[in-house]
């Protein structure tokens, strides 16, 4: 019974998805209320997850035969996933209505993808990791190619799929090496088996870390496994792009934390070296290439690559001696992800609204947005400054904690590369602001209408971006609580 209660948020997501798929088959009439069923499912799951965190004592040990760990860390990602689901569903209502008559599956798939995120974050066994990972990947491929008539959408899905299949295969190979070395798929059993055996098994474990990183790097879009993301982001329906930029990334980081920290703590030096290099490359390449982008979806794609680099700093800077400190890296990862979630979904909500009104995604078409729609321009200003990391926004708190973690463990080089990158990044974010605020609108440009559903998304995301920035304490406590029961 206890197990069932703890699984409730995931069951609700699953049921909602099944209901959406099932009801769509009944009768021929168009059911306008089906998306709201999906939305309701996501919100109920969110509420239940929050309630369980507050009211129930969460177990530290994995359950269901050691496959799933429903600890506070997993619940943190349930909150993330359900928030993503709810916000993406609200933002896509109008957008999808204009583009395709077959919409119910879209919302069902979104729910399944979010369910997959919660499973990935809870997986305590390599088999479960792989299954949840594939569920997330496959739903993401379909969502990316959802607009069948649109060539770009199909192209994006194919690219995403080809890269994803390769990455999964590499990751699976890495897992099999790890199994070969330890004769176990259970994460904590792997750690036990490797305890003390460090040097003698290194020839087997290090390649397996590299191969695992291919899969995880693909999910968080870290360099050099990022090539799929700009094309997939540009081609996918914009709400899906919003989802991809946040959901799978969060799942990837959950995996990184769990697998590397729980299964491979003795090989910390190895994966830290690897991840530091990846982090620096990811930040630098993401930001430098973003500078030259003229399509806002592509720009945000490269920006999200860069942000993966910043978040990796937090993971790299984790060490046992500082785990009690507020500046332990994992705290930084979680708070950064939370702030980034609201900021990026908000920024994409603006992009969706603009695309719905004008049909364009070119940055130069944002000229004079301040006159055309002060609400869109004003909220976008806050999102872009949050991405830049200006105080008063959530992005600043995230950066404060990951940079703080790096300094605490004396990874000064990493911190310096990160701040140089923050300045480079400011340039392309400001470039969008320049068009919106400083350039006059093109001739004949009229005021833009904002749909009520997008207004809700903007209000929620913008509000929470500011709340995290101005009153971070509750979010920090949530992050600390989630790290605390991780059992590392």
């Amino acid at each position, binding site marked *: 019974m206890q197990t069932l209660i703890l699984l409730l948020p995931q069951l609700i997501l699953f049921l909602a998805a099944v209901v959406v798929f099932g009801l769509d088959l009944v009768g021929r009439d168009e059911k306008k209320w089906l998306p709201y069923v999906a939305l309701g499912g996501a919100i109920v799951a969110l509420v239940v997850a929050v309630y369980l965190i507050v009211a129930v004592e969460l177990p530290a040990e994995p359950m269901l035969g050691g496959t799933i760990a429903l600890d506070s860390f997993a619940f943190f990602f349930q909150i993330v996933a359900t928030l993503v689901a709810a916000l993406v569903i609200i933002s896509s209502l109008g957008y999808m209505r204009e583009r395709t008559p077959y919409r119910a599956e879209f919302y069902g798939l979104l729910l399944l993808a979010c369910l997959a995120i919660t499973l990935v974050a809870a997986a305590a066994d390599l088999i479960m990791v792989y299954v949840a990972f594939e569920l997330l990947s496959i739903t993401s491929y379909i969502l990316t190619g959802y607009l069948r008539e649109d060539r770009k959408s199909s192209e994006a899905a194919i690219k995403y799929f080809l890269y994803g299949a390769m990455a999964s295969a590499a990751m699976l190979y890495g897992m099999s090496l790890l199994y070969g070395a330890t004769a176990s798929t259970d994460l904590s059993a792997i750690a036990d088996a490797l305890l003390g055996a460090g040097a003698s098994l290194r020839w087997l474990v290090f390649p397996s870390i590299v191969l695992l990183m291919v899969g995880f790097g693909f999910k968080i879009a870290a360099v050099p496994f990022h090539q799929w993301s700009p094309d997939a982001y540009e081609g996918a329906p914009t709400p899906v792009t919003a989802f991809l930029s946040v959901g799978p990334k969060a799942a990837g980081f959950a995996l990184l934390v769990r697998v590397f920290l729980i299964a491979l703590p003795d090989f910390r030096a190895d994966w830290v070296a690897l991840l530091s290099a990846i982090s620096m490359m990811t930040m630098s390449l993401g930001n430098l290439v973003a500078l030259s982008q003229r399509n806002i979806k592509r720009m945000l794609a490269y920006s999200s690559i860069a942000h993966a680099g910043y978040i990796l700093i937090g993971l790299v800077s984790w060490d046992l001696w500082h785990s009690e400190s*507020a500046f332990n890296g994992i705290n930084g990862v979680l708070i950064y992800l939370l702030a980034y979630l609201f900021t990026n979904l908000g920024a994409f909500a603006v992009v969706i609204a603009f695309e719905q009104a004008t049909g364009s995604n070119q940055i130069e078409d944002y000229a004079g947005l301040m006159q055309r729609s002060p609400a869109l321009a004003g909220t976008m200003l806050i999102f872009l400054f949050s991405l830049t990391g200006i105080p008063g926004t959530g992005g600043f708190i995230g950066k404060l904690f990951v940079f703080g973690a790096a300094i605490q463990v004396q990874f000064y080089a990493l911190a310096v590369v990160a701040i140089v990158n923050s300045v480079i990044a400011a340039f392309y974010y400001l470039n969008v602001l320049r068009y919106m605020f400083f350039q006059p609108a093109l001739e004949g440009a009229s005021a833009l209408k904002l749909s009520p559903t997008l207004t809700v998304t903007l209000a929620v995301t913008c509000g929470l971006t500011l709340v995290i920035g101005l009153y971070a304490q509750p979010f920090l406590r949530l992050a600390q609580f989630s790290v605390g029961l991780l059992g590392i």
Partner: protein
Amino acid sequence: MNFPILSLITFIPLLGALIVFFIPKDKEDWIRWVSTIISFIPLILSFIVYAAVRADPGQMWFMEEYSWIPTISVYYRMGVDGISAVMLLLTALLSTLSYFYSIYTIKNRVKEYYFLFFLLQMGMSGVFVSLDLIFFYVFWEIGLVPMYLLIGVWGGERRIYAAIKFFLYTLAGSVAMLLAIIGVYLNTGTFNILEAAAAQPFAGNFVLAAAAFWAFFIAFAIKVPSFPFHTWLPDAHTEAPTCGSVILAGVLLKLGAYGLIRIVLPFFPQVFSYYAYTVPIIPILAVISIVYGALVCMAQWDLKRLIAYSSVSHMGYVTLGICAAAASLAISGHGEGLMTSAAIGLNGATLQMFTHGIITGGLFFLVGIIYERAHTRDLKAFGGLGAKVPYYYGIMMVTGFASLGLPGLAGFWSEFFVFRGTFAIIPVFACIGVAGVVFTAAYILWKIVQYVFLGEFDQAKWDEATHHAKLTDMELFEKVTMWPLVIVMVLVGFYPTVVVALLNGATTALLGKL
């Protein structure tokens, strides 16, 4: 609990911004007047703070402390001593004058303009009252955003370039500062500026202390700006709208100097004295700023750009004065006389912050006034204006002479104190720096007075250069804007104690703790 006067001074502008936000866009006169009236509240409160702090300017007044992010012990922590009180007054005064002057001069996007200006005022006031490093940093960066937009939307021809340059330069400095702030916290366990200063971060580890020192120093030197970090300034000041330039020169530059005095000097006295005396990199930068800034002024033909460069030169005095105070720590045998000279140097630096704010703020208003008429700032287009606009001529003469340090006006005392302090401690740099005073006199008299006002007025040249603009003397609102500034210049010139009493108490206390 005390009356939260500092919170009110800081956040009434935010309230003003909200009020402006809810006034309909087309009620422009409402927005203008309501904003101006609201801005008197922080001004009056700043006067009250100023009057109260006079009793004992060496200690912190009106302390407010609330827990903000307990996890990492970040506090909402405010307090003022003599230096902050003077800076707060300067901020409120220049802001109110800017709101008033803008009533008549800002014609487009009025609502956004006042909204942003209020946010700017909040950011600036917040920096001067913060006693917590993160709190300080938040205000430091928040002020950046409205200024970026003010330059970019209401600025001159090259405004977009100037705006982004301003933003990126300041951001580059401040992210480095953020790392140093975190470092200080991890080392001392507190974000409290006073406690961290008492704990002396990284004491005993010269390499780390020097790294943190330079991170802070560069962030502040960019804002001051000190050579070689000054190149954003001429662009930003020249392209900003008149009131933007006034605030930039009058207050924003002081944020950098204030940071040097409030954070860098008390946190890293050893490192600072090392780089001010043993390896005198910083005084070299200061005198280069002074002399080079003044020389560049002499080569300018754009009046606004000239005054922008004069800020580089004048803020060099501030850095030099702070250097003198820092250098005194490296000289063995802390004699009474040396301490006095250090205090005098620091008094000069802080007084220069105040007087430069008043004087250069005034000069930028005056440039704005002539530009409104002529729509050019080319010095070659002017000449002989003295006879045509005598009132303007008179005000410009007073302000210009104050700028070049004529005894009897405000600028004299600050320069005198700086050189008096510096000469006793690092005489070589004082001697080189004094050359800057000569060049200042040269560009004020030669470039501004002679090219603009003296000689015969040539109607044909004027018509050609300004497309037949009408040349009228100052309007009443322009006079009203300038009067308070001129009064302060003369008052401080004749009776510097009104300000120096506060500054001296604070600087002596500050130096006593080092």
